[in-house]
């Protein structure tokens, strides 16, 4: 019998240890490394010139479309995994259900391609 909680305790502890490792190493190297900040050193790198404009971010609409498509297929994947474990015992019915599901999402991808949403940039 598996020990459900013990497994997750291990994972949790590993997460904490990994985080502590990063923070700890950074603290440790603080003892060793020099620290002489100067204004020039702390300037944002922009090919050796003072940055033009700052403090804001902008991106292309295309990225949003990619992310949206990703969300949709990610949801699909979440349903795919429980299905993968049981479809053999459930037989044709479950298979057809998934075919329809995947088919509809494939339509989404097709639509995106057809609307040239993946054309860049």
């Amino acid at each position, binding site marked *: *019998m*598996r*020990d*459900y*909680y*013990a497994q*997750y305790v291990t994972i*949790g502890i590993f997460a904490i240890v990994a985080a502590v490792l990063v923070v700890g190493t950074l603290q440790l190297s603080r003892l060793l490394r020099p620290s002489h900040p100067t204004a020039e050193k702390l300037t944002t790198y922009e090919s050796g010139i003072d940055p033009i404009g*700052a*403090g*804001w*971010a*902008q*991106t*292309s*609409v295309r*990225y*949003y*479309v990619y*992310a*949206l*498509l*990703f*969300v*949709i297929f*990610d*949801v*699909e*994947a*979440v*349903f795919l*995994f*429980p*299905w*993968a*474990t*049981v*479809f053999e*015992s*459930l037989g044709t*019915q*479950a298979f057809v*259900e998934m075919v*329809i*599901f995947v088919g*509809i*999402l494939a*339509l*989404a991808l097709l*639509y*995106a*391609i*057809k*609307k*040239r*949403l993946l054309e860049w940039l």
Partner: protein
Amino acid sequence: MNADVVREVFFWGVGAIMVIAALRVVTTQNVVHAALYLVGTLMGAAALYVLLLAEFVAWAQVLIYVGAVVVLMLFGLMLTRAPIGKANYDNSQRPLAAVVAAVLFGVMSWILIDAFSGTELELAGENAPRTQDIGAVIFSSYVWPFEIVSVLLLAALIGAVMIARRDEPEADKEVGS
């Protein structure tokens, strides 16, 4: 140590983190920070799901919410201007909103405590449902909602695209180039 005590300590710890993060989501004056605090709340929720014996939902939460929805949010934020530093994102109804939220919380928690005080959760790790159980139930009893999810996602994509796409008349003509 008693397992129940450990669970309670865990619950309080995670719960506190979630609440603090949630409060920061609604009060911080930096949009990207708000999205990142939301990640805190979401990860906390995933931890609670694990506690509630729903490991599949917990990892689905991580996969979809943290891995996808928040990324989508961040892209959206950067598309609509996401400065480093502060700006004012609150409106003038802040006090009123606080009152409404507090009253709502009072009423809800009073009702809930009243109705469910004394009900204990039996959290037996060895009974945690497995992925197969979830799959078996979805694909036998919840087929329609499942299929509708796919239609919903398709509709969401089409809707989003209709709204945000570049208005390109020639897009429909010929794609085969």
